[in-house]
């Protein structure tokens, strides 16, 4: 079947299997920043933005997003101009293997769109579906807080 959607800001018409997941579709389109971790909605490494809301791509069938907007980490920024959340996570020491990071960046991005001054608890709630085996989360929260401050100060 064919569906139409806006993918990373670009209108796309895709041929898909009616039963395939959004994770499968995105990775087959070369958007490998969307990671297959657990495939069960537990780890958060496949999180993308669906109409601006962070969701687990492994839990969504692609046909369900027809007509909507999907943003992956590749749509947020590129290597020439990383998003402030990405740079602050790196500066805070919040990125080790990096596998969980794309999903976390997108959840953090969605959070800061709605709550420019999140508390640590609000950040933890926003990230409660993300597992990180490397860092222990403290630096991740710190990096997001730093990014929020820079955005608020108009320094980005």
């Amino acid at each position: 079947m064919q569906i139409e959607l806006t993918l990373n800001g670009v209108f796309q018409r895709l041929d898909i299997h009616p039963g395939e997941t959004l994770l499968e579709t995105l990775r087959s389109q070369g958007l490998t920043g969307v990671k297959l971790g657990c495939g069960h909605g537990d780890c958060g490494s496949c999180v993308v933005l669906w109409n601006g809301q962070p969701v687990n791509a492994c839990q969504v069938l692609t046909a369900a997003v027809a007509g909507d907007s999907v943003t992956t980490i590749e749509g947020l920024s590129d290597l020439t101009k990383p998003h402030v959340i990405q740079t602050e996570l790196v500066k805070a020491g919040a990125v080790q293997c990096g596998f969980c990071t794309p999903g976390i960046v997108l959840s953090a991005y969605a959070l800061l769109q709605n709550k420019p001054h999140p508390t640590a608890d609000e950040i933890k709630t926003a990230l409660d579906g993300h597992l990180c085996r490397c860092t222990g989360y403290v630096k991740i929260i710190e990096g997001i807080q730093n990014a929020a401050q820079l955005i608020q100060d108009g320094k980005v």
Partner: protein
Amino acid sequence: MIKSVRRWYRPASVTAALELLSKKRVKPYAGGTSFQRGGNPDLHAFLDLRQLPLHEIKEQARDIEIGALVRFSDLARYSFPDARAILSLAVSQAASNTLRNLITIGGSLADHPAWSNLLAPLLVLEARIKVAGAAQEYYPLPQFLQEKICAGATLITGVHLPPAPGFGAYRRWARTRFDYSVVDVAVYLECRQNQIQCARLALGNLWATARRIPEIEARLTGRDLRDPELPELLKLPPVKIAPHPGFSSAFRLNLTHQLLCAVLQQIREQSHAN
């Protein structure tokens, strides 16, 4: 991938959806999370429900009707005017932020998975489930759970909550924030001058579905909320509970009592503040 799926229908009305559901091997698709966690894979087609007008929470006089497609994230943010706020609290602690952006109240009621935290608060709030295509329009939740209303060409369209002017509290216990709860408790009390006029108490995750506990409710009714003997009255009668792979029944029953005592204390504080 669900390989058996061959097509999608996108009905614009509940009537059209019911006609399509009468076909074999067609399932409604709301949030979709049931299908990726071992839901029924033997499907031919999905019914995309998104165009149906079931996305709103409506306040009508003092009643509230929640559309079946309202997501847990929206329910968690909703400011209920009275003790119905325990529903927001319960769903805000279910699954994860990203999954709450997918999970719908209708989908959770159709499958009532263990992680949804939905049933205990809905039981004490005396929710009624609105079902299209069924023998009656509204089902009290206990009847809905017992009679498996969702088989066949029926569709959950909403949840009706009557006013809840009393005090409510909800607690759950799980090993981690994201884990399924080992037990969850919901309590609703109506008091007049500290005398308990109405007591509703429900426990979840001790059995296949959540249950009210009429024996404890009867013990509490008519008692003074400040009575120091109330915590003793919260002990469960001798009941068999479903086994749990990680915790003994004795641990879980003791945990349940501790949570009920904590909830009672919380309600006492609410009452005192009022």
